């Protein structure tokens, strides 16, 4: 994928973090624009039309979530939010309000770059291939058939739906609420999170080599799940 003409807008009030992101992301070949406040971020987002936005949730003027919602009113550019560790609530709200992914401070640059690449790839083309393949796992969306190492895996309809949703967003985090809503519809209740766990457990038993150390369906504690494709 050609990353050299992708423009990334960084909205963060900390000069140190902006500098770090600018230097490293430029080294990876991205074009970098910076904004130090929420208002400036909104202005730049509309004038530059960036391909991706890295947004710090803890901004001094506008609440980061507010910036996120206002950008989402007119733009579908992927947004990756930066948060601090123990604010799971913020992460979930951000993801459910349209953020594509999150990175927790302090973060490794490798992690951030991987998230940026996944988000850009998803934005570039919605997956419309009939067969998804991840190493030894293939999912035939037309036939509704899942194969692992060439062997057909029997899945219940619910398990299949869950796997499909996760695999279609491969590399991206999917919140519990998003999963519940897409599989069970708007009518899901509180106790459904219990059987979401049960189904994920069943899927792992069928797909993972060691279900205590899952490689495919990874839990993002307190937030949701991430289907890990090889390059994410």
């Amino acid at each position, binding site marked *: 994928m050609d990353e050299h003409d992708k423009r990334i807008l960084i909205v963060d009030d900390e000069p140190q973090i902006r500098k770090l992101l600018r230097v490293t992301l430029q080294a990876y070949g991205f074009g970098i624009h910076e904004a130090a406040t929420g208002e400036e971020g909104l202005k730049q987002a509309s004038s530059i039309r960036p391909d991706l936005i890295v947004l710090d949730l803890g901004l001094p003027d506008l609440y980061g979530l507010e910036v996120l919602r206002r950008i989402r009113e007119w733009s579908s550019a992927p947004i990756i939010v930066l948060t601090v*560790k*123990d604010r*799971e*609530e913020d992460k979930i709200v951000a993801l459910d309000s349209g953020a594509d992914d999150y990175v927790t401070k*302090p973060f490794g640059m490798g992690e951030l770059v991987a998230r940026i690449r996944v988000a850009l790839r998803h934005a570039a083309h919605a997956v419309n291939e009939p067969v998804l393949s991840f190493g030894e796992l293939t999912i035939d969306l037309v036939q509704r058939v899942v194969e692992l190492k060439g062997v057909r895996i*029997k*899945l*219940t*309809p*619910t398990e299949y739906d869950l796997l499909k949703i996760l695999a279609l967003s491969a590399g991206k985090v999917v919140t*519990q609420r998003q999963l519940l809503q897409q599989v069970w519809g708007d009518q899901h*209740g509180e*106790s*459904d*999170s*219990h*059987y979401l*766990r*049960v*189904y*994920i*457990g*069943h899927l*792992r038993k069928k797909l993972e080599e060691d*279900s*205590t*150390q*899952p490689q495919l369906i*990874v*839990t993002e*504690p*307190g937030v949701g799940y991430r289907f890990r494709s090889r390059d994410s």
Partner: protein
Amino acid sequence: MRMRRIQGFWLSWLSYPCITLLIALMTAALRPLGSALDLVNIALIFLFPVLVSAVWWGLRPAVYAAFLAVLAFDFFFVPPTLSFSVADIRYLVSFAVYMAVASLTASLASRLKQQLRYSRQREAQTAALYSLSRQMSAITDLHALLDNVSREASRTMGAEVAIYLPDERSHLTLTHLSDLGSPWGKEESEKVIAKLAFDHGEAVGYGSDTLRNAQGYYLPLRTEDRVYGVLALNLKDRKFRFTSAQRQMLEALGGLAASAIARVKLAEEAKIAHLTAESERLRTAILDSVSHELRTPLAAIIGSATALTSGDDHLFNAEDRQELLVTIREGALRMNRLVMNLLSMAQLESGMLRLRKYWCDVEDLIGVALAQVKDFMQHRRLQVQLPPEPPMVLGDEVLLEQALVNVLSNAIKYSADHSEIGIAVSAHTDMLVIEVADRGIGLADGEYGRIFDKFYRAGAAKQVTGTGLGLAICKGIVELHDGTIAARRNEPQGTVITIRLPVHRPSGEALESERHDRQETELETDG
């Protein structure tokens, strides 16, 4: 009280007609036998009602009985009968002897009875005091103690009780009232008298040497060296003086109360002293630990970074540069761990932490925790044992995972590479038990309870860097979930940390879905 007094009054008056009747009956019974029996025998038989009266009713009814008996004997039996006149003058001597014997026996019998009553009373008092002292030695709460004392005092004395204790500024204040609705005890004049008793350490008021006309009795609660408060009795409605037994009982109660209050106060003071010492120890430990744990990685980071930015490009080859950069990264990660631990601890202690309770799959928790510690595992062998269908736990996934990561990190940190680390999960009816066992350096016997204390580092762990926060955080998290955490020795060596979490059964709806799920599987297999 009054009821009993009225009853006593009637009983003593009722004795006289009873005695009269008894003697009349005896006379009627003996009269036909009079000629058969010798007069001496009849006189002896007439001693009987005297004895009975002395034992049942006391001295006065007995004397009355003796008198009546002599009259009856004289009138009906001594010749000439049916006359008070006495033919033989010697009978007068007999009467005198009879009276003397009767009154002596009566007084002995009644004294015996009084002594019996007295010793019964003493026994009851001793028993009451004993049970009170036993109750009080078990009480550590001052309020419950005062409640007990005042109840007992008001019961034995039949009067309202108020207790005054000095406050922090040594002002005597009303601390307890047996009858909260009563206005007595709250007035300033009563407080002034109580203060007098408190300052002088002597009883004041009704029947004492000072202010003997006051309506209350104010007894200082004192031990040998200190007065702890004042017990006041409202004697306004009282018509009788204290008996000496009551006074003794009251004094014994006062002494008992004083020593109990002294004990509670001393325990409180000892607790405060202990807390102060403990917080002092903690402060030193925090400073030592934090400053060491912050300075060491900072020194490494600053040293490496200044070396790299010193400007001379040819000073280090590529390998050296890489090594310095890795040092910087590791130092920063170590500081990050410390900061996160300190923040977690502060959150746990401040009660700021809001528990977000969701259903957590224990297999998932272990998976996430293992993914976190994977980089430090090196070649340690991992054994995970799970029941086929582990129950779900209702809890905060992020916190529980952090607790597991801390326990696992410790197991890794204090055990040799290539050794075995076991994670065993077992499900009980209302408990989920997670055991993490290592074959590491282990702990000394006295340390198993203490390693969960903040900033406590085991003796054998001094060589390994750490803050002593990890397990304290675990304990905080597990207890937030109403669970427990404990440590014990692993055989042949190492440590086992056991986390117990309560299991909540999901609602019927979720179980329904699992059944539904099985049906789904069957459908697919058929297709």
